[in-house]
């Protein structure tokens, strides 16, 4: 009566997975080429404004010639009240008060000087040409950006970049 056999039958053929590593390696190489490494996870909230016709900093970044600083509300809201307008600077993941706030007025210029001193010798760009990129939240007060700018001017680091999120392709 039983036309259908429950067990036995043919075992499903084994799939050949020899080329699986190749596929994964291909994926790996794609990601290695198409991405750049994250510098740090900033400790302040940054949602950059949108814009167009900006300069692409990726080539500089791959040569690690840029110093990034972040400006936004601290991720820990309890601390926000300690800062000027409630916005804090993040330099290398260390939250600083804004340029003339809690800690020290020379935080930015000291940080920039340290960064410049630590640059490997193959980077020959003088201090005034080393780009300092300000990544600020879209609600951040511009006064703080100008405070940063003043600090950079004092030590003759004369190139600043205002980060945005580019809407266009070019």
């Amino acid at each position, binding site marked *: 009566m039983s036309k259908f056999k429950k067990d036995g039958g043919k075992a499903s053929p084994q799939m050949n*997975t*020899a080329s*699986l*590593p190749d596929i*994964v*390696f291909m*994926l*790996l190489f794609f*990601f*290695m080429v*198409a*991405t*750049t*490494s*994250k510098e740090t996870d900033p400790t302040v909230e940054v949602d950059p*404004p949108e*814009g*167009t*016709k*900006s*300069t*692409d*900093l*990726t*080539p500089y*970044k791959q040569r690690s010639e*840029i110093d990034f600083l972040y*400006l936004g509300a601290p991720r820990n809201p309890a601390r926000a009240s300690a800062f000027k*307008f409630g916005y804090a600077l993040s330099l290398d993941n260390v939250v600083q008060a804004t340029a003339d706030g809690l800690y020290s007025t020379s935080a930015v210029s000291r940080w920039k000087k340290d960064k410049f001193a630590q640059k490997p010798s193959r980077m020959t760009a003088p201090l005034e040409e080393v*780009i300092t*990129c300000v990544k*600020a*939240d*879209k*609600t*951040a*007060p*511009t*006064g703080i*950006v*100008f405070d940063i*700018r*003043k600090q*950079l*001017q*004092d030590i*003759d*680091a*004369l*190139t*600043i*970049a*205002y*980060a*945005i*999120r*580019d809407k266009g392709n*070019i």
Partner: protein
Amino acid sequence: MAKRAIPEINAGSMADIAFLLLLFFLVTTTMDRDQAYVRKIPKKIDVPLDQDVEVEKRNILAIKANNQNQLMVRGEVFSDPSKISEFILKFYQTNEKVNDPSNNFPMYSTTTLALCEQQMTELDSQIEEAERVGNSKLAEFFLSSYDEWNKKKQALKLYGKDEMRELAVQAHIRIEVQEQTAYSIFSQIHNEIEEAIFELRDKECMRLFSESYGILKRRHAQDSDPKDKSKLDLLEILYPARIIEVTPKN
């Protein structure tokens, strides 16, 4: 001697290793590119000027934003910030072909090849004079303006005509914001300036070299060809982007 068979290596875990690497890269990298407006900060002056520099009103394009994020361009309130670039275009183009003193926009002057050469020989003798006296700072100053004229001369040669129209040296765009102006407004102003300058240069680039300014710029960023550099220099001389960011007062 009998050959020994090479034992086969089990490659079954190769995929695991590759996956591990892949995951590592996925986690530590970002896809988004860093885009920004790059600006120069003026050098600090040691001795403050005792007198303000006179600038004609027509040469100033003041873009102001206040604490409430309201915009004002040349005394006019702009409710739509995306209209600023049109105004900037007007600022550049009104007197481009013919100077008309009756309007309130910057004038253009005509630069010729003969003028460049005359200035260069003059500066040459001035450099020699300064070096003879031993005033190295003055010599440096003359040398930099010599370079500027030389740049203009090269640009004119590339331009292919005997003369070109040049925007008044003092003409500039001025950004005046207040302390609590949102960064988005500030970056939007930069965006509008960049857009206007791009449009002007792109049009000229199309006309002169029949290619897009964006492509030219990108190619120069990639393989910095001196030919592209001189083209970019020419476009920069034709439509200079002079931006002054005024530090807000407390």
